[in-house]
């Protein structure tokens, strides 16, 4: 039999090799390097400044606020999204009439463009908009200029939208996880006379742990990078600028401070890495508890 040559192998994988080198490896290394310079797009020449960008970042109130906002965003949305999405997955897990309709309507928002969703919610959150109307009906007094024009509510309004939008996506992942639990386990539990709560606690939850880990890690990586909704809804005003928004503002608007912005991007990169690693350790080890 003719053995396929090494040339065939290398040319098959070449699209990835080229993309990897040009559009991933090079940018990742390059931004690390310019993070140590004072490089600006519109200024001739640049100097190696060592850790100065990093030192300045941690003295820059705008950067610290953006990190704080990012943390609020991540820690505020993920628990709610995870719990509600899991609940929704339970609701549509069994066979019943209209199940397909409910399941699809739940995940329709998650495949819609973020820009479109953000625009719709800018309208819903505006002064005299639907959400202000509902808040008034419920006896609350909405902010005078709408939820997005108020330092105390803008970030939370965007977070609420983000939860709403991603619920369906994580529900689908949880559903796939629930499907992978063998029916025999539930039958055995029923024969043994276990209560539904006990079954949930002792069978469903432990077996769903890998899926939960996946959902939480993926959702954190995504939430740490929140940008589009901030750009569309507030342009970072009213205390909503997040880490990536800070990177964009520093690097790609008026100042074009490439070095400073790249350093900020790397700080965020490291935080995301540490956060994901921690989640792995915590959720992996809890076997005895669950």
């Amino acid at each position, binding site marked *: 039999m003719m053995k396929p040559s090494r040339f065939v192998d290398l040319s098959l994988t070449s699209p990835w090799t080229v993309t990897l080198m040009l559009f991933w490896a090079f940018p990742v290394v390059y931004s690390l390097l310019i993070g140590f310079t004072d490089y600006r797009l519109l200024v001739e020449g640049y100097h190696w400044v060592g850790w100065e960008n990093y030192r300045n970042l941690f003295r820059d109130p705008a950067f610290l606020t953006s990190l704080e906002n990012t943390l609020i965003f991540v820690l505020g949305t993920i628990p709610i999204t995870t719990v509600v999405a899991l609940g929704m997955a339970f609701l549509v897990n069994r066979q019943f009439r209209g199940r397909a309709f409910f399941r699809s309507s739940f995940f329709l928002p998650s495949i819609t463009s973020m*820009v479109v969703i953000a625009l719709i919610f800018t309208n819903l959150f505006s002064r005299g908009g639907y959400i202000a109307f509902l808040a008034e009906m419920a006896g609350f007094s909405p902010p005078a200029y709408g939820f997005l024009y108020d330092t105390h509510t803008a970030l939370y309004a965007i977070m609420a939208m983000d939860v709403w939008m991603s619920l369906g996506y994580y529900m689908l992942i949880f559903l796939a996880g629930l499907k992978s639990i063998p029916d025999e386990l539930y039958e055995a539990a029923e024969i043994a006379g276990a209560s539904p709560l006990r079954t949930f606690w002792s069978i469903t939850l432990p077996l769903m742990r890998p899926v939960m880990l996946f959902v939480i890690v993926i959702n954190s990586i995504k939430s740490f990078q929140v940008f589009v909704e901030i750009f569309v809804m507030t342009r970072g005003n009213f205390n909503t600028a997040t880490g990536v928004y800070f990177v964009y503002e520093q690097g790609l608007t008026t100042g074009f401070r490439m070095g400073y912005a790249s350093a900020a991007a790397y700080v965020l990169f490291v935080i995301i890495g540490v956060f994901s690693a921690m989640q792995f350790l915590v959720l992996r080890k809890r076997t005895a508890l669950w």
Partner: protein
Amino acid sequence: MVDRRHPLIAAGRYISLTAIAVVMLFPLAWMSRVAFMLPMDGLSVTSLTTAGWTLQNFRDLFTQANLGWALFNSILVGGIVTIGNILFCFMVAYGLARYHTITNKVLFATVLVVLMIPMHIITIPLYLLCLKAGLYDTYWALILPWLVNPIGIFLVKQYIESIPPSMEEAARVDGAGELTILFRVVMPLCKPALAVLAIQVFFTNWNSFLFPFILTSRESLRTLPVALALYQGHQAVDWPHLMAGSTVAVVPILIVFLFMQRQIVSGITAGAVKQ
């Protein structure tokens, strides 16, 4: 499993399901309603029922606001990137699945690493790279970096590994060339995985904002999401036009969604459960 428990539980289930469905569908319904209102109708909660219906907003967008261009750009770029991914992810996945060399093991590891890398880290350097290489503000910047993607490679590789290599070997014995084997023997077998890949890539591309936004500046290169996000800028509160534009951006997704839900779902859940 059919739920045969107490009717009250069943009723409670339907009530909560309906409540959630209303919350999930209302914003999109509101968008399509506002899209057909006249600009002077004024948006208040009551306008949902009192405002009239018109196609004027859509007409304005295509005649005055160049939405036609944005639609064309989105279709063109989305089409090319999708075709590129079908071809390239398939080639790479086949190479990685069938040739077990050390280089390929390393390459597959890089696929998994890139899958985990937060995209924001490449925004500034990619902007600079495109600027220096002359890709900035051209169609190339919207296409070249996105022609092959790690999730796609991963998805198709898993699929190819589940196909026994006997067909390829038989074809090879018969004297078929590698290209024939690749495109006439293996590719047709991978159709289900490639369909999932195509939809996923097209959706991602169609909805993508960040990179098309930072890598172009000319108005004639805007894709739909970029055009919509920046449209807000010059006319402060022109909701009927904005929502009409949003509807144009959502309808193609909705059509694909209605006909290919199974593929969309398996694209979303692929990789999640096998963990």
